[in-house]
């Protein structure tokens, strides 16, 4: 029993690294990303696994290849207006829409896409 639990935990840990837990369930960042009162990413971005996406922003796919530097992706979610003053992307960190922890969780999730 104990051994099985341990292996389950190991599977969960491994799954987290791969973007899902042992049962293939979503990372907490996915709920935050899709929640209309939180990230609400689908309003503007097509993300695999999300319904009825908008298209103001680019599709969020191949994220590891596009953003090898995690800091860059985190900074975009925190406040993209710093890099591109004309962007319409809300400054999620600067305007306290998401906490730093929530942004990190969403970035974890995005790296599975």
């Amino acid at each position, binding site marked *: 029993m104990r051994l099985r639990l341990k292996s389950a935990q190991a599977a969960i840990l491994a799954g987290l690294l791969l973007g899902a837990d042992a049962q293939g369930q979503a990372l907490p960042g996915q709920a935050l990303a899709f929640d209309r009162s939180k990230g609400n990413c689908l309003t503007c971005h097509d993300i695999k696994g999300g319904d009825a*996406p*908008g*298209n*103001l922003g680019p599709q969020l796919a191949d994220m590891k290849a596009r953003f090898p530097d995690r800091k860059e992706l985190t900074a975009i979610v925190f406040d993209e207006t710093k890099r591109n003053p*004309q962007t*319409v992307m*809300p400054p999620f960190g600067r*305007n*306290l*829409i998401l906490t730093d922890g929530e942004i990190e969780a969403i970035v974890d999730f995005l790296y599975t896409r």
Partner: protein
Amino acid sequence: MKIFRAIASVVVTIAALAIAGARPATAADSIDPDADFKAFRDYFTKRFPNVPLNDFVNGPYSMDAELRKQWEAIDDFPPYDFAIDRGKQMFATPFKNGKTYGDCFPDNGVGIRQNYPYFDLQSGEVITLELALNRCRETNGEEPYSYVKDEMASLTAYMAFTSRGKPFDIKIPNDPRALAAYQKGEEYFYTRRGQLNFSCASCHVQNPGNHIRTEVLAPALGIVAAMPIYRSEWNGMGTMSRRLVTCNRQVRGVPLKPQDELYRDVEYYLSYMSNGLPVSGPGARP
């Protein structure tokens, strides 16, 4: 201020749209509505070369063929019909003092929508149709209506309907107060606000035709022409006031009071930008 011209040139640069003659920032502090008007119209017509100029008044339907089909399918029984009928009846019904709405307006209020808002040189402020209607009521000893829906939307629906096809004819008198009102409206339109950090222009200048979720964003050019509108999302009619208040809320900003002077200035600016385009209201939107 040449806010639009400045923003448009940046947007255009980003979108890599080749608009010839992007304006140099000369005399940046002068208020020049005519130059703004030309830059504004050029921006939209060059970005959407296949949209006939007069079709911009149909908002999202001018941007999206699929949405247009759905709209045409319901247009035999438009959802705003009841509002036109009600407004017509209200116009025909005298106030307690025997006067009517028609007595407050030129041509009995028929076919005049395209002249609103106007700048009133006596009071030194922008007068919208909604404001004029409530002032008419109050002058005649009646309580003012809510500005956002119901009776007000019925009255403006009827007045728009009798004006359909007439080109917007908004004038900015050569008076510093009128130019200041225009400028304040323009500034409000391009200023970001709310927790989500959106300006009106973020959606309606930078992203017309794009989708937020499944919704198609309307172009700012002609956006006033269809007011008031029946919105399925509202499950009812809404006025220009309602549209401004809900836009502010959607970006998690603090809305002004309906018919606040600044909102009227915004409507003045936007209506001037739509000069020459036909009244299409009342409209129906998803």
